[in-house]
C-alpha cells in the first residue's frame, strides 16, 4: 500500500510499504477514505518529537471502512464505516475505566521508553513516534487499529467524511480545551492559536455558554475563520496581547485561557524568540512556551489555564510566581477522544455543529509532502489539509 513516511527533519515521502494485518485478536484493519494533517504532525515534521525513525508512517486523524476484524472484536463488522480516535485505548485499565483514554496504561508497547522521558507512559498514539508505541499512522491506504472494540465509532453513510473526520482528534480536542475551563455564565475565554484546534475551541466555548471568546494569532486568514466561528480577535504582531486583554476585560483578565499552540510557538519579541530558539537548538529546552507564559500572565486571579497545545519535553522560564500567587489552575491533557465521540457525533447529526468549516485543501495522498510544506509555511491560506488515499 501507499503511505506517507517520515524520512527525517522536514522530509516526508509517499512510499510503498507492506499492508498491515491482524496482529492481535482485538485488532481491525481499516481501508482509509480520509486522513488529515494535524498541527501536531508539524512537531514531528520539524523533528522536535524524540524517537522518530526513518520510514515511520505518519498520521493520527483518519477514518475509513473496516475490511478485516480479529476474532476478539465483536462490536465491529467488515463494511462498517468508522472514525478512529487518535489515542489507542484498551478499555480495561483504571485510566480507561475512568474515561482518561489518552493515558491508557496498556496500549503503549514501548512504555519503558516513554517512562524514561516522561516519568509515566501515556497511551500509544497512531503515527506518533516509538516512544508512544511505534504504531504506523493513518496517512496511508490502510491502517491496523488495535483495541478496535473500544476506539472507533461507527458513522452513518449519509454523513460525509468531512463532517465527521475531525471526531478523531481536533474537534474533541478543542471541545475538551473549552470543557476544562468550566465555563460559567458571563465568562470571557481567551484562546491562543487560531489553527483548527483553536477554531474548534472557540466554537465549543461559545456552545458551552461563554459570554465572549477572544482568539489570538498572527495570521489574519486564520483569525478570520475564528471570527466566523464567533470570536473577537487579536493579532499579536500588531497589538500587545496582555494590554489588549486587560482592556477588553476592564482589568479583570479572561476567566480562562486556552493554550492551543504548544511547543513551537512564535513570539513577536525577537530577543525572547532567539533565546528560546537557541536553547531549543542545543536541546537545553525542547519546547518554546511563549503562548503558555502569556496565557498564565493574562489569566484573571483564580482563573483556569487549559493546555491542549502539544508539548514534548522541557520548558524554561515558566512563570511559577504568577501562577502560584494568583491561585491559578492548570489543566492539561491529550484529548480523551473516546469520551466525546458519541455526544459530538450527535451534535453533528442534529446539525448543531458542522466541523467541515476548517478545511481549506483536499489533496491526494501522493501530494502529502506538498501538503506538509504548505501547512507548515501557511502558504495559500492553508488551514486544514485532508488527504485522500484512493
Amino acid at each position, binding site marked *: 500500500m501507499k503511505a506517507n513516511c517520515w524520512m527525517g527533519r522536514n522530509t516526508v515521502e509517499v512510499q510503498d510499504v507492506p499492508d498491515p494485518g491482524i496482529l492481535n485478536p*482485538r485488532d481491525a484493519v481499516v481501508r482509509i477514505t480520509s486522513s488529515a494533517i494535524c498541527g501536531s504532525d508539524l512537531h514531528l515534521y520539524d523533528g522536535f518529537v*524524540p524517537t522518530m*525513525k526513518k520510514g515511520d508512517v505518519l498520521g493520527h486523524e483518519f477514518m475509513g471502512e473496516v475490511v478485516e476484524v480479529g476474532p476478539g472484536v465483536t462490536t465491529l463488522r467488515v463494511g462498517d464505516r468508522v472514525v478512529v480516535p487518535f489515542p489507542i485505548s*484498551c478499555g480495561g*485499565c*483504571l485510566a480507561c475505566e475512568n474515561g482518561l483514554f489518552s493515558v491508557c*496504561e496498556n496500549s503503549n*508497547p514501548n512504555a*519503558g521508553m516513554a517512562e524514561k522521558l516522561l516519568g509515566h507512559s501515556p497511551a500509544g498514539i497512531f503515527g506518533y513516534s516509538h516512544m508512544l508505541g511505534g504504531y504506523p499512522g493513518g496517512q496511508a491506504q490502510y491502517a491496523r487499529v488495535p483495541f478496535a472494540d473500544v476506539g472507533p465509532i461507527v458513522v452513518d453513510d449519509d454523513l460525509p467524511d468531512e463532517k465527521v473526520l475531525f471526531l478523531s482528534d481536533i474537534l474533541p480536542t478543542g471541545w475538551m480545551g473549552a470543557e476544562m475551563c468550566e465555563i460559567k455564565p458571563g465568562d470571557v475565554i481567551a484562546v491562543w492559536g487560531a489553527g483548527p484546534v483553536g477554531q474548534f475551541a472557540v466554537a465549543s466555548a461559545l456552545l458551552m455558554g461563554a459570554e465572549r471568546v477572544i482568539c489570538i494569532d498572527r495570521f489574519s486568514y486564520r483569525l478570520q475563520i475564528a471570527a466566523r466561528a464567533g470570536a473577537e480577535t487579536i493579532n499579536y504582531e500588531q497589538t500587545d496581547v496582555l494590554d489588549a486583554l486587560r482592556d477588553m476585560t476592564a482589568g479583570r483578565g479572561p476567566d480562562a485561557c486556552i493554550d492551543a499552540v504548544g511547543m513551537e510557538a512564535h513570539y513577536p519579541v525577537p530577543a525572547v524568540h532567539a533565546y528560546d530558539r537557541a536553547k531549543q537548538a542545543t536541546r537545553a529546552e525542547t519546547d518554546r512556551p511563549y503562548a503558555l507564559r502569556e496565557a498564565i500572565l493574562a489569566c484573571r486571579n483564580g482563573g483556569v489555564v487549559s493546555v491542549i497545545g502539544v508539548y514534548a519535553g522541557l520548558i524554561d522560564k515558566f512563570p511559577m510566581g504568577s501562577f502560584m500567587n494568583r491561585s491559578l489552575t492548570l489543566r492539561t491533557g491529550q484529548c480523551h477522544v473516546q469520551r466525546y465521540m458519541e455526544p459530538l457525533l450527535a451534535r453533528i447529526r442534529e446539525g448543531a455543529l458542522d466541523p467541515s468549516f476548517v478545511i481549506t485543501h483536499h489533496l491526494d495522498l501522493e501530494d502529502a509532502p506538498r501538503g506538509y510544506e504548505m501547512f507548515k509555511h501557511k502558504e495559500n491560506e492553508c488551514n486544514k489539509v485532508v488527504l485522500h488515499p484512493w
Partner: protein
Amino acid sequence: MSEAEHHNAHRWAGVLGWVSAGLGVLQVAAPDTVVRVIGAGDRPWARRVVRLIGLRELFHAAVLLGSRRPAPLVWTRVAGDAMDLALLGRLMAEREDGGRRRLAASTAAVTGITFADIVTAVRGGHEPGLPPHRLTNLRAAITVNRPRREVYRFWRDIENLPRFMIHLESVEPIAGGYSHWRAKGPAHKSVEWDAEIIEDQTEQLIAWRSVEGATVRNRGSVRFTDAPGGRGTEVRVDIDYDPPAGKVGLAFARLLGEHPQQQVCDDLRRFKQVMETGEVARSEGSPEGTRARRQLFQRPAQPVR
C-alpha cells in the same frame, strides 16, 4: 555471616582503598625513595617498575573508593599483592647483600597486607543470608485492575508465565510442586532448569527456587495485595539470580537483555496487559511480542538527532 560483619568488610575495603591511594601517589611521585626503602638496590629498572606498581595502586584505589560495596573488589588488590610478592622473591633470590634485610622486612609487610586483603575480600564476598555467590536482585511492582483472586490464580497456573515473561519458552508443571522451565537463547540455544514452589499462600504469595544443580540458580517470589480504594491488585515481584559463568551463563545473561531490571518491569507490564486486556500490546514498531529476540535490542530511549 552477620549483617554487621559484612558492613565491616565494606568499611575495611574502603580503608584499603585509601591505603592504595596513598601508596600509589608515593610510588608515582617519589619512586627513588620507595626503591631505597624496600631495599631494591640501584637496578635501573626498579624505578620504572615502582612507578608502574604505583599506577596499579591508583587503579585499586579508584575501584575500591568508587564502589558502594567494595569488599569483593579487594580481590584486585590480592592479585596485585601476588605480583609484588613474586617480584620481591625474585629480588631476594638475587641476594643483594646490602638490601637483604630490608627486602625481608618488605616481604613480611606485603605478606601481612595480603593476609588482610584476603580476609576482607572473603568476608565481603558473602552477602548476608545468601549462599556464598553473588546473586543479582531484581524487584518490580505493578497494579493490575483485576480482583486479587483472579490475578493470583493466573500466576499460580505457572504454564501461563511465558505469555508475559519474554525470555521464557515454556514452563511445565511436574508433580509435587516441581516444574521444568525452558528459555530460548540467542542462536536457538535453550537454557533449561527445574524449579520448585517453596511457598504458596493462597491469594497472597508464591515463592519458587531453582532446584539443586540447576545451570541457572534463581529464586523469586510474587506477592499479591489489594490496592487501596478498589484499584485492583498490587503485584510485587522479587527475583534473585546467579549470573553463571561459561557459555550457558553467557546465553542466559543475554536472555535477560542489556537491562535486566527493565526486562522485569516490562514482563510485569505485559502481565498487566494480559490480565486487563487479554492480549499483549503489539505495534508494527515492536512486533516481536513475547519473543526473546527483542530483548537484545532493548535500549533506553534516546532522542533522535
